[in-house]
């Protein structure tokens, strides 16, 4: 019983942790956003792949929500003291991953190949795949100009309102090796509670991934990233308001037209359930806040139960 999960970084990584507590980790394939990938200090950084990698390896910093636990910042402090580029927080342990990845990429290895190697090295049994091996970059058009994702999200603290999200390179991007197989072999497809525009959106911008999900023969379940019509973290609610016209669960469902069968929504959004049903999508009301390992495992279990019927 294989499961394919489309996911972004932090929230998606937490959701995956819960999922692999509920099912055999080796049965799960994570198809991860690469629209946030960037070069920092000459290094190839894949923030969402790293968040998922660290979470599944059990080395993520749970409190901070990103990066590695027991992290130190000596290298970055040194860079800063030398007047180097220091806006993107690279920790010392974290740097090891970027160094290995950058060397592999420079030697001509694909992102998916080096990702697989890193996952094995960190003891991760779940298959981690970048959505594509080709350059696909998320750009935000705002009244203050157009910004690459991390420039907008980190450097400008996502304060500019977004008029449009673009995915540079998406038109020609092919799914990474293994992505379409994972979608075809899955008994269940899940969309993690990540931002629909900038986390799941770039994955679905790869045409062959989107069409594989449109033509699915198995259920696809999305988890809403909202609780009480607010984002748990990050700009999802602000973006939904501006780009989709509101922050109800139905507005989340409308981000995935023809792509999902079930939308899991929080108890605090139960009033929106009928509007979700009206879109032909079954709402499943549960607790979606992943405050601890038990809560995130239960969320995954509810997603699995949602599509089970003997």
């Amino acid at each position, binding site marked *: *019983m294989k*499961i394919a999960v489309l996911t972004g970084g932090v929230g998606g990584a937490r959701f995956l942790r819960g999922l692999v507590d*509920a*099912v*055999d980790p080796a*049965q799960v394939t994570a198809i991860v956003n690469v629209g946030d990938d960037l070069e920092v200090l000459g290094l190839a950084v894949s923030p969402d792949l790293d968040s998922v990698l660290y979470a599944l390896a059990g080395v993520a910093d749970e409190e901070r929500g990103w990066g590695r636990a027991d992290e130190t910042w000596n290298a970055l402090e040194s860079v800063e003291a030398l007047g180097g580029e220091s806006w993107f927080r690279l920790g010392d342990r974290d740097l090891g991953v970027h160094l290995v990845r950058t060397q592999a990429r420079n030697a001509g290895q694909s992102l998916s190949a080096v990702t697989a190697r890193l996952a094995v090295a960190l003891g991760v049994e779940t298959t981690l795949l970048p959505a594509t091996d080709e350059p696909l970059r998320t750009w935000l058009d705002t009244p203050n100009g157009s910004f690459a994702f991390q420039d907008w999200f980190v450097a400008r603290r996502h304060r500019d309102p977004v008029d449009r999200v673009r995915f540079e390179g998406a038109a020609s991007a092919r799914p990474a090796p293994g992505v379409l197989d994972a979608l075809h072999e899955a*008994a*269940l497809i899940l969309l993690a509670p990540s931002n629909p525009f900038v986390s799941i959106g770039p994955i679905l911008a790869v045409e062959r991934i989107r069409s594989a999900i449109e033509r699915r023969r198995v259920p696809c379940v999305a988890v809403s990233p909202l609780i009480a019509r607010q984002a748990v973290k990050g700009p999802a609610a602000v973006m939904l308001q501006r780009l989709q016209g509101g922050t109800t669960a139905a507005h989340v469902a409308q981000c995935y037209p023809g792509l999902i069968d079930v939308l899991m929504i929080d108890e605090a959004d139960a009033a929106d359930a009928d509007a979700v049903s009206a879109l032909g999508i*079954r709402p*499943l009301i549960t607790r979606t806040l992943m405050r601890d390992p038990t809560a995130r495992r239960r969320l995954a*279990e*509810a*997603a*699995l*139960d*949602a*599509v*089970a*019927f*003997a």
Partner: protein
Amino acid sequence: MTAYVIPYRIGGKTRLGDPKLALAMLSDVTDAVNEVAGEALLVDGPGGQGEAVAGALATLSGPVTIVNADVPCVTSVELEQLTASAPAIVAARDGTTNAIALRDADDFEPLYGPGSARRFAQRLGATRLALPGLRDDVDTWEDLERVRDRLGKNTRRYLSRLVRM
């Protein structure tokens, strides 16, 4: 007295593509339950199986045995063994769960889906029983072929009619 609950989705079992076959298999399960308990409670709902069962169990208390509707080889003896072993489960070959016996309806948690046998066994502290009639669920015509000699009378009769046609 143990209550028997059978989750049954009308129009389900789409992989078999034959609702009458699904109904024949259900009849074999209800026959086996009727021999043991005299009545079976069928449950359905818009959502997942666990949700549907949880909804039904909310109105019950005391021991309960939940049996899927797609185990046409089940016997009343197996049901008695399962119920007597509560908390106990019977897993399907693919790691999902075909039957659950609980000491109390309140013990139930909605944990169906891929890999559910492991979750039910862990969470309920349940014994895993290897009862062949409860283990062999029928999702496909190949599954049906494999258990042909052990089918209950309703499924057997339905298949013999198909052959004659």
